């Protein structure tokens, strides 16, 4: 069976045949005959350049299909076909999200990978965009726990949401959108903010299908304050799931090198719990470099210390300890460079980087140095790993 793709279509009932999209498309993927203007699915690379130039809105149409409609088929259309039923586990392979705004957010978050992100070969097929702006799902807050020490100035929360029996199939590494109530200063509803789930696919509690998030309260952050102030029983509007590349390989022999800071640990927690509940220590193993300012601002500090090393080897790195020099994740990676180098050389290794955008540069330098020490050029290795679905970046 073919992998489903998201096909870009133009609504022939709304299009006015001005051909502006056709003239804008940088790769000539848009063509017309006397009847219709259509997108060639073999050529379109989803650059989205045609979307804003369309005066009608007819161009922003998408169908998830297993067999794309051909150009000739589309020329004959008088109206768009309805979306065919596609079962959940075959939906939208490879597409991060079905609406442009969410896709753009994810594209930006994944830009640090240096090219088009790919999912690990053995990853489960994700469901994306089951719920969207027009059709969100309502979740109930089950819990809201502070993860950082009471005295610390960093307020990071563990939020648990339940979907009350409605389906919300989310994989480790995917994100969900939270819609803060109210409107912005222009009277428009707030766009959803994306949060990576920190729970595994079967639920925060096994087989309960509930979802946890790791959210840091940001000063003046509209959505983060809303989420951090939620109380059990509160109702929340949720969209998603989103994301189809930053995913866990199902192959138990895959080795995971995870590098994160702060709430960037959310997907790493989900990965770890998934493995804990399935293959446990009988896996290729996981290594994590986890940075925070101090132990009392590092989310999940307590529970992490209890995870056996055979499952997850953790390096906790602190940059603001009294009387000690600042240490960042890249510094510790250099200290552990032999172990990292050994992993870089192994084709079973998958790298995940998640956290603030600022970490990219330092981590990139460390990986460059370490790769050089084994006679490998990092950019080339990175590109290979990314092409093979083994290198993943999500920063914000």
């Amino acid at each position, binding site marked *: 069976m073919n992998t489903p793709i998201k096909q870009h279509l133009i609504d022939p*009932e*709304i299009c*006015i*045949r*001005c051909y*502006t999209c056709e*003239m*804008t498309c940088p790769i000539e993927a848009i063509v017309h005959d*006397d009847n219709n203007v259509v997108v060639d699915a073999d050529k379109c690379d989803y650059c*989205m*350049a*045609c*979307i*804003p*130039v*369309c*005066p*009608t*809105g*007819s161009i*922003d149409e998408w169908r998830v299909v297993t067999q794309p409609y051909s150009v000739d088929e589309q020329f004959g259309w*008088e109206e768009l076909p309805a979306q065919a039923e596609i079962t959940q586990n075959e939906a939208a392979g490879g597409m991060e999200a079905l609406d442009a705004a969410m896709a753009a957010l994810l594209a930006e978050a994944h830009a640090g990978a240096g090219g088009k992100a790919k999912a690990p070969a053995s990853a489960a097929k994700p469901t994306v965009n089951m719920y969207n702006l027009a059709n969100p799902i309502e979740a109930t807050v089950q819990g809201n726990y502070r993860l950082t020490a009471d005295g610390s100035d960093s307020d990071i929360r563990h939020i648990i949401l339940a979907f009350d029996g409605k389906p919300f199939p989310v994989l480790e590494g995917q994100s969900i959108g939270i819609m803060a109530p109210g409107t912005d200063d*222009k009277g428009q509803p707030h766009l959803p903010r994306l949060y990576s789930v920190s729970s595994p696919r079967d639920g925060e509690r096994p087989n309960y299908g509930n979802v946890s998030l790791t959210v840091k309260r940001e000063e003046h952050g509209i959505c983060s304050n809303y989420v951090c102030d939620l109380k059990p029983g509160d109702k929340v509007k949720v969209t998603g799931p989103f994301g189809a590349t930053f995913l866990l390989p199902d192959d138990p022999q895959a080795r995971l090198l995870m590098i994160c800071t702060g709430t960037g640990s959310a997907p790493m927690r989900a990965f770890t719990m998934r493995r804990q509940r399935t293959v446990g220590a009988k896996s290729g193993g996981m290594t994590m470099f986890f940075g925070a300012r101090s132990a009392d601002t590092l989310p999940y500090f307590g529970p992490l210390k209890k995870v056996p090393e055979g499952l997850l080897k953790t390096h906790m790195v602190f940059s603001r300890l009294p009387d000690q020099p600042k240490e960042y994740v890249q510094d510790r990676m250099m200290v552990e460079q032999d172990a990292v180098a050994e992993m870089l050389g192994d084709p079973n290794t998958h790298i995940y980087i998640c956290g603030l955008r600022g970490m990219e540069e330092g981590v990139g330098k460390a990986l460059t140095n370490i790769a050089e020490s084994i006679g490998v050029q990092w950019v080339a290795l990175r590109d290979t790993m990314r092409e093979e679905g083994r290198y993943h970046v999500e920063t914000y």
Partner: protein
Amino acid sequence: MLDLINVSYDTQIPNNVGLSSDKRVLKALEKWHPGYINWWSDLIPQNFQQSLVYLRTAVSVDPKGWAKFDYVKMPEYRWGVLLAPQVEGRTIPCGEHAGQPAWQEVPGEYRNLMKRLIVIQGDTEPASVEQQRFLGLTAPSLYDMRNLFQVNVEEGRHLWAMVYLLHKYFGADGREEADDLLRRQSGSEEAPRMLGAFNEETPDWLSFFMFTYFTDRDGKMQLESLAQSGFDPLSRTCRFMLTEEAHHMFVGETGVGRTIERTCQVMNENGITDPYDINKIRDLGVIDLPTIQKKLNLHYTLSLDLFGQEVSTNAANAFNAGIKGRYMENRIDDDHKLTNDTYPVWDMVDGKLVRHEVPALTAINMRLRDDYSRDAAGGVGRWNKIIEKAGIEFEMKLPHESFHRQIGVFAGHNFDPEGNLLTGAEYDAKVNEWLPTKADGDFIQSLMKPVTEPGKYAGWICPPKVGIDNKPGDFEYVKLHMA
């Protein structure tokens, strides 16, 4: 390094042409600017000037940045000078210089010809805003009002585009011409606009939709052929204007379409099957299809006149000089010189209509007009689909191009919409069936009552299928200023 994609706001005039380092032109434009603002302020009724309109503005000329939507008061709209990015190694696409590098400066020998083309194009832009100045008062919805104002501010920006070229490349002459563009007024006795069709007031919204569909489409064809110019700054200007022009086509096509759809809907709701049951249909507050056909006949034929004489040495010279190309010149597969080619044009021989071959070079206008007619026919076909879907037996048609013409070989003769030559008496007996009468106009005028509640539409027109910028149906496209 000069940023030629993103719009720079370091001068009063947003631009992507490095105005801040071009003191001479900057000074000239700054001098012209207050006159423009005065023109705009005197034109549009005051309470609209104070209203917040949900408009799109370009913040860059690449696809990502040219359609940013936000509320803005129209006098504060960032009119500016925006050129499409320069294409490296671009060559003159047609005429005797075809293949040579495109000009970055005006060649002396073509200076006057070029200036004339730019002035004529520039003159139509403010003219249409003048023609439409009172339509806001009778808008059938806030959505339509917003579309009108978007068209208006963009025509204003197109004036800026032409004025920039005049100031930058034509010295003192250019400055004088730029001032004249603000001095002439649509419909004025002493200083009318240059082209006839731009001196008629646009009296009602159906006329506005027909105007944007048919007359702005002439503008589009002219821009298309100027976008093929060997004079690169003109080509780049027109290429960017075309992306804006598409919105005007959209307003026209969907406006007429929504009017037709509403008429069909109301006919069906009331069990009327005969589209010629005019009084009954009008009593229900919608515009009957035969009247819409008459409006179509009028606006299509007025617009055909804008293409000038079928056989024209001026047009031949402009093409041969490489100043103005054909529609989609870059996609036409020939030698782009037309030295030995012919093209069939209409002519009157012994009182009969014939189409015969003339040197293609002299038939440039005819060819563009043919391209125009083909382009215009597409939307008419889509209107007919709406009628067909409603199950009503009626078909909109473009009249024969000889009908109701004032310019070219057909002028001075009487033809019916099928292209049959008639005597004056025969024509006069039937003309009221073909062109809108004063009574038709009065009836349409009687429907022009403003609707200003968000999400509500006047009874004679359907809501659009999709909102602007994907906004929901009850979006407040204009926050009206309540004085």
